[in-house]
């Protein structure tokens, strides 16, 4: 019997795919509609991303791990470190220690340019721009969806009030992305893939990126007429009815059984609800900051039930290099976006909480 040479990673990947296939097989009742959504010209990029994001992530991780191994090796062998500067194809005797950009990089880049051009040509020939007929001002289509790249934003409107979701959050995200280079105190990891040296940075970016993609996927595939939640493959029924009663957190507590026994009814009134919301949000920021601090410094290898706070020496060193301003800036953006978004999503979807903090000017 031929020996099946399957690594653990391949097995896991295969397993996930099989489970996914079975899941789709049993849950999707309306393949026709799924196909309609997936094949719409405007949805092609996001469908492609469903595959491209995992693939490129996987490729990036693989390369990082290879680099990390190399780094580990070189760190133990200073002599080797002197010769092995090359990472993609590590140096061997007889080879040039350094390779020039021209022509070796440029020719590859040129090839890629040509390939991308061909792809764009074919794409633009096969799929026309999804321009539609003139709009009817008396009738908005249902569901009325933004282009795919804005669907994450549109989906955010479900969880925050328009002012927050439409203006504040996007601004924070954009400013945050611009700020990143300046709050980064890590001198390593420039120009090559690495996980070990930029564990936290990569993790945070990956988290944010995946979250954004997830929102777009929800907006594209899950939200149907009336912006109602339809699982993929469920028919988008225009007459679908859902019972969806969202309450603000203070009301939720005030009217809960515990709230009643503790006589917390006053929480529903002004200014109690304002103060309450302020306290909750402040508490969230404090807790969130502690959470990120823990994430930043914990040594996952030594993490155990008994020891929750093992310190990672490397990360500790990085932290030491970070100024207070850099640290606080990062914490603000991280808690406001990376943590607040999923927390609010869960609150809203699982606990039907509408707003946590209700003020006359904005709601969170």
């Amino acid at each position, binding site marked *: 019997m031929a020996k099946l040479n399957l690594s653990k990673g391949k097995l896991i990947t295969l397993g996930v795919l099989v489970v996914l296939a079975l899941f789709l097989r049993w849950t999707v009742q309306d393949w026709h509609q799924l196909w309609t959504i997936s094949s719409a010209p405007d949805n092609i990029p996001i469908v492609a991303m469903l595959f491209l994001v995992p693939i490129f992530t996987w490729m990036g991780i*693989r390369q990082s791990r290879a680099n990390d191994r190399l780094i580990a090796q070189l760190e133990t062998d200073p002599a080797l470190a002197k010769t092995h500067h090359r990472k993609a194809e590590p140096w061997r005797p007889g080879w040039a220690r350094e390779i020039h950009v021209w022509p070796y990089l440029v020719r590859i880049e040129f090839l890629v340019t040509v390939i991308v051009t061909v792809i764009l040509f074919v794409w633009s020939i096969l799929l026309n721009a999804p321009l539609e007929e003139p709009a009817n001002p008396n009738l908005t289509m249902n569901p009325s969806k933004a282009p795919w790249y804005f669907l994450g934003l549109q989906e955010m409107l479900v969880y925050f009030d328009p002012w927050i979701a439409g203006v504040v959050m996007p601004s924070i995200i954009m400013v945050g992305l611009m700020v990143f280079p300046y709050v980064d105190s890590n001198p390593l990891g420039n120009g090559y893939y690495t996980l070990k040296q930029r564990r936290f940075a990569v993790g945070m970016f990956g988290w944010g990126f995946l979250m954004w993609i997830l929102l777009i996927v929800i907006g594209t595939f899950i939200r149907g007429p009336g912006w109602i939640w339809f699982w993929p493959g469920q028919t988008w029924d225009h007459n679908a009815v859902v019972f969806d009663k969202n309450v603000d957190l203070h009301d939720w507590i005030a009217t809960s059984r515990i709230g009643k026994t503790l006589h917390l009814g006053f929480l529903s009134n002004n200014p109690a609800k304002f103060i309450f919301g302020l306290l909750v949000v402040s508490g969230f920021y404090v807790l969130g900051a502690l959470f990120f601090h823990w994430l930043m410094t914990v040594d996952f290898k030594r993490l155990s039930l008994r020891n929750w706070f093992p310190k990672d020496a490397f990360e500790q060193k990085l932290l030491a290099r970070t100024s207070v301003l850099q640290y606080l800036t990062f914490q603000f953006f991280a808690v406001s976006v990376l943590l607040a978004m999923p927390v609010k999503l869960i609150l809203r979807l699982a606990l039907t909480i509408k707003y946590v903090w209700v003020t006359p000017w904005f709601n969170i």
Partner: protein
Amino acid sequence: MADSTKDNESLVKKEPELPVKDPIVSRSTSGIMLLCALLLTLSLAWSLYDEAFGQRPWKGMQQQFVSRYSKYLKSIKSRAGETEAQVKQDPEYQTLDAEAQAATEKVKADIAEIDQKVTQAQRKLDAVTDPFQNQRGKLTVINYDAEISSGKAKEKHLKDAQEWRAKAVDVDLPADDGSGKTVTQKMNYAQLEKLFNDSRDEKARLLGQKADLLKEPTELAKKRDDYLKHHMTGLGPTQIDGLLRKMDQFDYSILPHQISVNEFNIVDRCEVCHAGIREPLDLRPEDLAPDGPGKKPDSFARAFVSHPNKEVLQIHTPDRFGCSSCHWGNGRATTSDVKGHGRHKFWLWPMFEKENTEAGCQQCHAKDRVTQGAETLNLGRDLFSQRGCVGCHRYEGFDHEADSLAATRQSISQLEDQITANEKQIRLDENPTEGTSDEEAQKMLAQSESLKVTNSILAARIDQLNLQSKYLMQDQKKVGPNLKDVRLKLRKEWVPQWLANPQGFRPGTKMPTFWRFAEPMDTGMPPLRDKDGQEQIQAIAAYLWQDSFNGKLPEQQRGDVAHGKDLFETRGCLACHSIGDEENKIGGTFAANLQKVGEKANFDYIVRWIHNPRERWAPYCPKEKRDLTEDDYKKHNLPYEFDTELHSRCPNDGAELQVQNMTVMPNFRLSETDARDIATYLFSLSSPPQYADVSFMDSPELREKGQALIKQYGCAGCHEIQGFEDEQRIGKELTVEGATPIERLDFALLTKNAEEGIDPLKLHAPSEATPSAKQEEKPWYNHKGFFEHKITEPSIYDQGKEKDPKDRLRMPRPFLTPEWRNALTTFLIGSVGAEGANVPQSLFYNPEDTRRQDIQNGWWVVKKYNCMGCHQLQVGQRSVVMDLPFYQTPEGKDLLPPRLSSEGARVDPAWLLKFLHDPSLSGEKTADQNAAIDNAAQAAKPTSAPSSSAANTAAAAPSPAAANAPPTGGHLKAQPGLDRNGVRPYLKFRMPTFNFSPNELQTLVRFFMAMSGQQEPYIKEPLQPLTEQEKLTARQMFTSGTPCLKCHITGDPTHDAKAIAPNFLLAGERLKPEWTFRWLLDPSQISPGTAMPTGLFRKEGDRWVVNLPNPPASANEYHDDHARLLVRYMMLLTPDEQRRLLATAPVAPAPAATPAQKAQIRSKNKGGETTLNRSRRARRPALVDNRSLRTAARPAGM
């Protein structure tokens, strides 16, 4: 990953064994580079192709069109020559050609002469031109020199000029004999100039002469060529060559084929692909088949055909309207047929399916009742109003009487409230309280005075509105019968039976099936009957039974079946009603099939109904909201009488009453015996079966439930039901239903099915004609699909829904044939209003000239009363009776109701109004009745009060005509004009009395005038009185040759029994002289197939003379137009004169002559003195009778 780990681990160890070459440096990328370059080149090429053709699919179509069309043109080129030759064989063409050639021939000699003279003049001119111009040139130079010089030099120049003028030059003039020789003449300047000018003028004069001569031949030739052009089936070879050249130079692009109408923002590029639409040839798909003309056509061939209705295109020129204005679709889209036809999901105006094309007409012609040429649409409108859709659904224009009536009543009650308030104020003002100063009291008094004036104005306004409401009530009709009569009319047991399954009892009936309580039927859908369906039927039946008139009808004996059958078939019943069961029924679909009347109805009631369907059991007072009883009248010491004329007001409060049954069925003025015979005939066709027990119909609890149900189902939309007189329509207004956004049409649980083309009703299942499986799978998530399914199976959108019974759909299932379904669907999808239209409102059909408005207004009335069941109103239209088996023989055709296609031109509008008001023409003009009839500015009207006191007198002293059918045991109200046709008593058909209100009378008269393009108002031209001599001449002409009185009615009963044309005595009042004149000259042209003989006159110079072999001497001496004389004679005919006429030419009662026979009869009947006297004596009373017929109230002989 495991592999790479291994590699890395062995990195150092394996180093020496590894290839020495650095892969990054040494690896060649040329292979992949080549591949990429190739791919890039390919994709570049592809994108260029895509740009040129892929994105411009029409180019391919245009090329296909050009190649196929050219092929077709070449194939017909040879045939085209033949067709031209064939047309040239045509005698008419030959005549025209001969005329043209003769004219040419006639002037030929003159022309030749002129041509010769012209040549001569030209030669002279040619000869003189050159020397003259030379001389003139030189002279000009000398003069110029003289002008710029002075002194001696000037004098010299002037002298030179003098010399030049005097100098003679040689001119070679042609010889006058035309021999071609030249004569040399010496001429000085003055002579040259004169000769030059003279010959030039001569030439111009000659050419003018020639043109004058050629005028006639040219015109004739043009006429001939036009004839050829219009009569050729195809095109001439030259024209085809022209088309071929056009194809050679075809422009393969969009712009030259685009229609752009800036004014209305219309841009249509339909003709980019549909290139053959406006080609002069009638292109059929097979002409443009891919494998050559005549082969099997493909979809391209079907797209290239020419427009099937070029007449419509002529009215709606594409250059002004575009294509998408009518057909919808996206006129600008060219990239695919889906987009171009607007089948794209978001395009608001998807192209109408072929079978619904006329929906596009409705868009702009929404106000029309009849749109010429849109037969499907017209059918849809007919169905909408006749099948009772209008009972529940409001639609602008349809059944507007109900709405107007409600509005009028509301205005009345508002005004009355105001009057009451004013009166209160007046009382207050007139009785000032203590302590009011004199001044104030004066002021208040003045105010009360002014209020009194206001009140009197308001009262006048109320009177006006009352009158209007009276007319509206007269015109308001219901689709279904009056259910207040249920107890009088029906068998009790039959009622629940009918409710349970109307189609089972009477297939095709207007009564729809109320699927919520009716017995389940096999319609291919799961039945959705309410759980308490059976109980609902019982409840409704109980209410109807308990809340209806309970009275005693006059009992009736059975009559003569055979006579009844004859009457039924010949009086005109079949124009609306049908008879016979399913397979072999005859008659119209306008009203019910009467086969099974015997099973359901009460004989006494049916007799009364046939006798006068408008006669109501009791009048309804809309103010008190109840039916009045005899007691109400007794209280006020009034006889229990109600009619539309003098007794239309409520004795209690003066409100206008509903005094008629709200049926469109007219009064045929049958005698009671005849009515009885017809009823007997109808009852002989079926007999009641055994019915189940229906004692529940007397239960008061069920009655209560029934009341709620009747309200819910909106029964009162079509029926008059006690307690529901003011019930509003329960359905949605449909005027702009077609513009409802698709999202708001509730497909309910069928949305998905509709989108995917799963059709539970299989409405478009492939038939034998089009066996394509594809058709069935067509999605129906569109307006067409929604309407079609809704009207076919109204329960369909309740399928699978969980609903409270009161929320369930209520629309019942109507009876529809596939054709009807399509017509109604067409009507509905076209009903888009201004908002939903894809053209600006300024393009809508809004006739501004009164003529067209009159026509459109008239159609509503014409269609309402089914005039076209009996009459032909338009050329080519077929009435129902024309197709009945009894009228297929030539004799039968003579007995058809008159064609009305030129009625407006024929008759005097005042007379027509009178006739329509009372077709029996039996009314009497009395002053007091005049006031009641018509407030329109018409001349005095006759009246025919169905049950007025006058009519009662008539019944007491029946006119002789009525006496012919003695009312044996008659106890129904007698009616005036009994058993009598006003104009054509010889017809078995009876023009019934419709009881039109003055509003409708006006509308109808104006309609007929407008249809014939008559001027408004009609002013009768005074006719010159006849001199005695003229009278004599006319009389002789009248009696010689074709004896007019043979066919025309004279008033003699024995003679009239055989007569087939109207009485001349009516002519003066009835006909227009101009029409009569044309009619006399050539009747068959006005009414093809008429019995009136043609060729009575022949043209002699400018005048028409009688066409007789031996014309009477007086006629020969009469030198004016004979036809005009006869017209005047007829118009001015008096009864005395008619008598004299009859005396001169006593006509023995003869069988009705066929036109051929009539033509033979030429000799004068020379009756002896005795015959004459006898016939005078015999005829005398008859003539008086004839007059007395017009005054029904007067006893005979008075």
